[in-house]
């Protein structure tokens, strides 16, 4: 056990680095959260905001299949509103700031939806 000091120091540095996000959040008081910027004046998205935050990906998948495969383009929201199911037409008309809105969370979570490989994103000033 001649190397005890060395091992313990190494282990401490390793753990400190590994747990960096935890102690950084503890120091700052809260973890860094992505803040998607909402620029629309509309009070509510097609569904309530909390619902959209959690489930927009499932909603978009359902929209995709309903439009392409079942040839229905109108969505009936829970509150009785009807909207045209279109990513670049409906979603992006309220959220034209893809970089500040979509990418804010997607980059934070390191998810890479492939919507924009085909669908054309609105032009924005970079």
């Amino acid at each position: 056990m001649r190397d005890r000091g060395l091992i313990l120091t190494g282990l401490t540095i390793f753990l400190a680095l590994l747990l960096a996000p935890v102690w950084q959040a503890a120091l700052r008081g809260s973890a860094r959260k992505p803040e998607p910027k909402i620029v629309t004046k509309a009070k509510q998205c097609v569904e309530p905001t909390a619902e959209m935050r959690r489930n927009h990906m499932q909603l978009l998948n359902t929209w995709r299949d309903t439009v392409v495969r079942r040839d229905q383009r109108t969505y009936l929201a829970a509150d009785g509103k009807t909207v045209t199911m279109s990513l670049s037409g409906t979603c992006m008309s309220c959220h034209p700031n893809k970089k500040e809105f979509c990418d804010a969370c997607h980059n934070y979570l390191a998810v890479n939806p492939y919507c924009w490989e085909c669908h054309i994103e609105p032009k924005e000033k970079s």
Partner: protein
Amino acid sequence: MGEDRRRFLKLAGLTALCAAGKGSLARLAGAETTAAGGAAKQVRWAMVVDPRKCLEKEGCTACIDACNHAHNVPSFDNPKHEVKWIWKEPFADAFPDQDARYVDPALTAKPALVFCNHCDNPPCVRVCPTQATWKRGDGVVMMDWHRCIGCRYCMAACPYGSRSFNWEDPRPHIKDLNPDFPTRTKGVVEKCTFCDERLDKGQPPACVAACPEKAMIFGDLNDPDSEVRRLLRSRFALRRRASLGTQPEVFYLV
């Protein structure tokens, strides 16, 4: 004991009979309602092309340009990578089973306008392993580009060459991007969809709307009073390689 068993068998038989009778009655009623629903005007979209009217103006590409712009069809320099939705094909190549030696050259000397035939019996649909292409109720042979895995079975199956593969990323090769329609991505097959996005709005396909000579007529084959049916009644029409049994729904007036 014997009496009990006899009563039980009688009751069981009667119950089974009632259950069977009710089931078949329900099925009959169901069949009636579906028959009534089916009769409620299912549309069958089809196209009639009048080659004599087409290309009145030499080198007219109005329909092709309109389609390419509406659907963000890329144009690659490499001819092997060509992506086509609607294009011109020499008459002999479009109709290889027609012996056109002595036919009016006004018809055969000009190239024919060809695109997806939206077959009633589409071989591309049969071979697609992911159901990325299928025939809709209104006869449109649709494509789901989200689901296409680029195996190109459909291209091998289509006897008309109506399908194209994106060998490279098409985005940089689109001259005039239409923001209202998606592009495709590398590794995806694409083709004419009879402008399903316009049909939903009650508009005719972009090529039909763009033709200055009204040489393309779009309509419902199931409606005996539609213009396509009227034209097909009054004039003889060719279909491309009809002998293959694909039942193409694009008609070329003679």
